[in-house]
């Protein structure tokens, strides 16, 4: 039951469509009692507003909607190690006063490995409640269409970054308690284009049993990134909040739904988006 929660606890802050996606910690988490996960999510997104460099919320001149289908594969090859693969397909619609366009393109593929060196029960036992550490290492491949290859004046066909993203995160978590939780802090650097683009991210989530077969989890995340410009490093940031409910249909099937949005309070120079996600997965 808790396995479904772990996906929600590690949910990302939502990133703008121009940036090649955000930094999910482990979108296809496999529980200790499972060996593999195959699933799919449908993420409907819509632009709400934008935050300017001073943090003020401004209206959008371009209306933005998107639907992202993401294939999920998770495999736990060892009690202490698992790997996660996400393959997105992005459909975007953009409309301004004078132009309207849409495009469907692959997004950036991600592979993430999670290493949990201490097994929770053996290391500390349920009684102590001490955090259990884990390390996540990931690679984002530029399989989406970057801005430099865009053929659309509104950027509807931009679905990825130009660079390769290398990420690492430290995690502290309790995944078998009555109220499981997870905290993470990490970094991603974009390489391969001649310039290094750094980003830092932090997130946390907590969940619990809502009713029989139902779980509920909430998460918050923050990401700060920098891009090189003629005047130095220019920062941007965004903060996301998400609430996710999961229903376990049978032992090997589960479905989940979540709603989330970027929060303007800590957002700078970024599009604020709302998201509704539906997911289904088979686990064994």
């Amino acid at each position, binding site marked *: 039951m808790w396995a479904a929660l772990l996906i929600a606890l590690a949910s990302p802050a939502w990133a*703008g469509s*121009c*940036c090649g996606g955000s930094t999910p910690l482990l979108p296809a988490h496999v529980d200790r009692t499972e060996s593999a996960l195959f699933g799919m999510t449908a993420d409907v997104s819509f632009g709400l507003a*934008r935050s*300017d*460099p001073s943090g003020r919320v*401004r209206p*959008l*001149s*371009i209306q933005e909607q998107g639907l992202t289908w993401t294939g999920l594969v998770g495999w736990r090859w060892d009690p202490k190690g698992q790997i996660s693969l996400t393959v997105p397909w992005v459909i975007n619609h*953009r*409309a*301004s*006063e*004078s*132009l309207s366009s849409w495009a469907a393109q692959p997004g950036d593929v991600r592979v993430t490995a999670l290493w949990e060196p201490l097994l929770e029960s053996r290391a500390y036992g349920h009684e102590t409640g001490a955090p259990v550490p884990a390390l996540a290492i990931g690679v984002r491949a530029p399989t989406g269409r*970057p*801005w*430099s*290859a*865009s*053929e*659309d*004046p*509104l*950027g509807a066909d*931009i679905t990825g970054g130009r660079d390769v993203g290398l990420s690492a995160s430290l995690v502290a978590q309790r995944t078998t308690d009555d109220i499981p939780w997870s905290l993470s802090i990490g970094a991603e650097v974009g390489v391969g284009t001649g310039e290094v*683009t750094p980003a830092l991210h932090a997130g946390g989530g907590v969940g619990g049993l809502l009713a029989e077969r139902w779980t509920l989890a909430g998460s918050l995340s923050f990401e700060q990134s920098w*891009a*090189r*410009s*003629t*005047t130095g490093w*220019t*920062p*941007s940031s965004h903060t996301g909040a998400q609430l996710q409910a999961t229903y376990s249909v049978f032992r090997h099937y589960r479905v989940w739904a979540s709603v989330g949005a970027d929060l303007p309070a800590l957002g*700078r*120079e*970024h*599009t604020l988006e709302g998201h509704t996600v539906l997911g289904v997965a088979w686990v064994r």
Partner: protein
Amino acid sequence: MRAVLLTVLVSACASPGASSPFDVQAQSDPSPATAGASITWALDVTRTDDGAAVEGAELTVTPWMPAMGHGLSDVVLVTEVGGGSYEAACTFSMSGSWELQVHVAADGDEGDDVVIVEIE
């Protein structure tokens, strides 16, 4: 007036312009400039040392959004109007702070200037 001030920002705050023999000022039409609309930029090029208008220059304009680390894939076409004035047209795919990175070549001299503009 406020909208004009937003879109006419000289390059004094940008490092490339500090040593450039040319100064570039830009004004948008329409003003304020909005994302998703075709914007025509009136670019006035002058000599940094004496303020003289620069005619017959070759201009390359590169829009760049620093916070997002991206530009526009389309090449911006520049035409000379006369009297040191030039026009460049482009459509911005996002709202926010953008740079117009302008490379100027005239009379054997070359220089870069950056105009920071706010796209609504």
